[in-house]
């Protein structure tokens, strides 16, 4: 293995470590939301510092790779992709922290009925699975798997789209739960953005492996 490959492997491993931490952060917010576990929410908030530190380290390593290794072709695309994936992961970490913050500030446990009718857990399941699968796609350079993200993101979008009317009905029936309902709406909006981040990462993997730019294209036509 040449020196350049060793350095890029280190960069890849650092990115995957950050990825796993971000997935854990998101899983913990789900657990904290369902069990109304404020300690766990506080842990997520504290861990956000680790996510940020990892982002800075990867940024710095990318800068060094450009300056010292002069990557070209697939190596150049890899470092460019890492820079953007790093940013996507950091934002996903911010989303987890945002959800953890309102859990830690909530006065009462979230009502089971509210969690069920808004399908927020289903949304969690999809977004976390997407993040896990896209991590596998990155590790194995599997662009076929990466392409499945575009379709799967639509499921999250659908739950998000339906959330407004569901919550309007709920608030009109239970006006005393308005704050809780708004918090869940906020979580849904944030999880929808996790889907977007995962989709962006999928685009970066395809760019890195296949040298194809999918941004602002109709992904449905490019699947398969």
């Amino acid at each position, binding site marked *: 293995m040449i020196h350049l490959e060793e350095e890029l492997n280190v960069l890849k491993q650092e990115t995957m470590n950050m990825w796993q931490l971000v997935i854990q952060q998101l899983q913990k917010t789900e657990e904290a939301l369902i069990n109304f576990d404020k300690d766990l929410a506080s842990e997520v908030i504290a861990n956000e510092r680790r996510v940020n530190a990892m982002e800075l380290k990867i940024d710095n390593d990318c800068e060094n790779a450009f300056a010292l290794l002069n990557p*070209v072709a*697939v190596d*150049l*695309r890899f470092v460019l992709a890492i820079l953007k994936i790093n940013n996507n992961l950091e934002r996903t970490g911010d989303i987890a922290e945002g959800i953890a913050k309102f859990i830690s500030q909530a006065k009462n446990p979230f009502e089971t009925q509210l969690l069920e009718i808004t399908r927020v857990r289903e949304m969690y399941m999809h977004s976390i699975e997407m993040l896990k699968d896209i991590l596998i796609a990155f590790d194995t350079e599997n662009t076929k798997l990466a392409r499945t993200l575009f379709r799967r993101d639509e499921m999250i979008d659908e739950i998000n789209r339906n959330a407004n009317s569901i919550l309007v009905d709920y608030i009109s029936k239970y006006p005393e739960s308005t704050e809780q309902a708004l918090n869940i709406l906020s979580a849904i909006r944030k999880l929808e953005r996790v889907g977007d981040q995962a989709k962006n990462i999928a685009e970066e993997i395809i760019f890195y492996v296949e040298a194809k730019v999918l941004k602002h294209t109709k992904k449905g036509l490019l699947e398969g």
Partner: protein
Amino acid sequence: MSLIIETKDVNLYYGDFHALKGISMEMQPNTVTAFIGPSGCGKSTYLRLFNRMNDLIDAVKITGTINIDGKNVYEKGVDIVELRRKVGMVFQKPNPFPKTIFENIAYGLRVNGVGDKHFIEDRVERSLKQAALWEEVKDKLKKSAFELSGGQQQRLCIARALAIEPTILLMDEPASALDPISTSKIEELIHELKKNYTILIVTHNMQQAARVSDATAFFYLGNLVEFGTTKDIFTHPNDIKTQNYITGRFG
């Protein structure tokens, strides 16, 4: 005016050794084309086709056509002196003549029959300006060319090539023996010169090829593996061999 250069199915043999294998390529006027590839791949041999420098080597056999502006330079009756006036060359190591700076430039003109003193003086100044050397040497034109630094000597050689007004410049690793500052000056010069000349350059320096050229050709074992815009070659080459070479994974 610069000319279109093209080769069609060119094969070159050094005795039994097949050094170039069916090379077809077209280079546009006022562009820089870089030839890259590992040592012995045929890139310098290919470069030397255009001013028939390979003719000087024994047992060379060439097939195919090498056209400059539609004319095959290997056709019978081609005036080689005239060809080399049109196709200038700069070598890896600066090779000034053991003469003054002025005479180094004037020499080519005199050989070509120019005797007018004022014409020669004007052309010397213009060539040195084109080669971005005038300001550094204008007060010591009568000094020996050997008093110049390596980088200056190389620019002097470029000025010498320009003095006889070629349309094409061949450069065989023109900056490989120079320090980074001189290299940078040569690269800037190449960038400026392509406005008026078509430049073909052999380089082992990948970053240099990326910086100075518009098109890049990758040679391997006498084959042209890939030829495309430099941007494409260095961002998403089509051939895995090209990718392995430019990323340093060639083994």
